[in-house]
């Protein structure tokens, strides 16, 4: 019995349901990194992101036989992840407001300088690498500060590369609404990082 060298997600899930554990490993390999970043930018904490990523894939294991193939696997997977993130956000709603004294995170989840420190040290950067590192941090912060409905659209598009139609299926809104949210997210991101306009020009 020959296997397709690049089987679709749905085919891999079908094989897993028939007892092929390797098919599931392939699926995990395809989706774990974008999904982890989608969750991480949604919940903003690495420990929560770790738990939620495990929960998402555990639900896939448990409910894989419920997947009927009426939609794409990625749509089904991100629907699970989105619902878990929403549940988590509801639980953490009282911790949403960040204090100026609260430490910010670096990409690795380590504690970084406070927003107050950043405001005080805002100035023209001279070192290109330092500027690039700072820009990535600011981009991550700006993305995390997006409204939830814009952020999830932005992340699904930029992290997972999902089409707008598929995003609309996950979010449950019309496709045009998804496109509008995407446009608002990009405009907001551009405004949040105007200080880096010159550097961004160099990126063109």
């Amino acid at each position, binding site marked *: 019995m020959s296997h397709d060298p690049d089987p679709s997600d749905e085919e891999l899930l079908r094989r897993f349901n028939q*007892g*092929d554990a390797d098919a599931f*490993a392939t699926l995990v390999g395809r989706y774990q990194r*974008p999904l982890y970043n989608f969750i991480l930018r949604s919940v903003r904490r690495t420990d929560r992101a770790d738990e939620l990523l495990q929960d998402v894939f555990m639900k896939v294991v448990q409910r894989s036989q419920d997947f009927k193939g009426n939609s794409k696997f990625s749509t089904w997977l991100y629907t699970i992840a989105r619902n878990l993130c929403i549940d988590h956000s509801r639980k953490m709603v009282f911790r949403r407001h960040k204090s100026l004294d609260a430490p910010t995170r670096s990409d690795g989840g380590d504690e970084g300088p406070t927003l107050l420190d950043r405001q005080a040290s805002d100035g023209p950067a001279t070192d290109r690498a330092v500027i690039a590192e700072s820009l990535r941090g600011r*981009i991550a912060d700006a993305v995390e500060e997006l409204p939830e409905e814009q952020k999830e659209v932005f992340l699904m598009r*930029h992290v997972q590369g999902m089409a*707008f139609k598929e995003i609309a299926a996950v979010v449950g809104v019309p496709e045009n609404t998804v496109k509008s949210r995407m446009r608002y997210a*990009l405009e907001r991101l551009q405004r949040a990082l105007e200080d880096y306009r010159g550097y*961004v020009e160099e990126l063109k």
Partner: protein
Amino acid sequence: MEDEDFTDRMVELLYAELPASDEEAMRAHLARSEAAREAFARVEEGQRLAEQLPLSEVPAGLLDGVMAAAREAAAERAPAPVSEPAVQSAAERAAPAQAEPADEDTGAWGGFLQWIGGFAARPQFAMAMMLLLMIGIGMWYLPDFRGTDPAGSQAIIDPAPGDEVGPSASLQPAEPLALETDPRTGRIRPRAEEEADPPTTPRRPSTPEAGSETDAVPVDAVAVRDPEGVGSTPEEALRDEAEAETDDDVGAGEVLTEPLADPRALALQTDLAPGQALAAQGERAPALAPSPPPSAVASAQQADRGAADLDSVGIESAPMPAMADGQGSASATYARGMERYRAREYRAAAEDFASVVQRPGADAARLLPSAMHHQARSERAVGSCGAAVRTYEGLLARYPAYSGRPEAMIEAADCYRRLGQLSAARRHLERASQVPSVASRAQQELTRLAMAERAADRQPASATSVAAEPAEAATEQ
């Protein structure tokens, strides 16, 4: 194309999701409109920033647990490898249905028992069977379903005064108390002490409510009790025989236990000096009539046992005693009353029973409840409900252990209903409805009474309206 339309589809142009024709139109508008160029430049810059979004790596080993779970799930879902032994075992599993008929002795029965066993092993079935068993046991205890009533619920279980239910006569057979009155002190003492007493000491007769039948033995007949009968008087021999017979065979309709604490009896005991005789019979209350001599009781039981009142339902009249030694006039009157009662000569029967009740002979004490009951019935039969009610009330108050008490309550209720005293009728019927033997009948009577009560409620209103109509007619005239 307007700027607004361009803005709406700007993201599609940015991410190259437009059809070729639409893309050309969009780019043409972009070349023409400065506002469109500015707007597109903002989202384009935002997109370039978004592409710089750093992506974090998944921590190593984070999904090891998930993968282990996936492997377990995959192993469970994987179809079992079809090997030759497996095929054989599958064939063996399918075989019993075909192999068992070969064992002709146990095959059919074994299969049936297996099927029954598998069915009975289900917890739902077990619970249903348990419920059915409980219902069956409960119904078995209902006399109406059993057909027979070994517990003798027809005989007694009368509500005692104070609405307490007395013990069943069949469970607690009445036994004569081994007590007697000390003739010297007038106090009750164990009967065994009698042997030590001098036989010549006169004994004071007692009332039927207060003591046993031996208390009424004439003074000259009292002798030292000889267990073996040697030296006993003939009266005592007869008395012992009667006692033995009475103890062993307590018939329905008899008064099984007489109230020992009748205040009048106790007062009489207190007032009478040892050996003092009672007053004339005509001056005594019927309830205080002395018990007949044992000899008379014994002879009466032997002569007329089995004479039952066929007209009564669930009530057997007391055996008619025969006349003995000139003391059986009350018994004869009772017998005559019964004959007249059966002959439906109710008025004459009522007079006979009243005579027994008012002037009982020494042998009539055991007949009193039945005599009173039949007197009340006779009075009721001739339409003297007022007299019947009084007789019924006397019977119910005087003989709380009388086995015909439930019937008497229903009959008294009927009399009250005829007299228009519906509340009294209801009270009697409600008490009777608590006695299982007549409960259904009492309920029927209660229903009938309720109808009478509703009719009585409607009657005043209709009478008023009927009375008003002539008045209005007179006014019109």
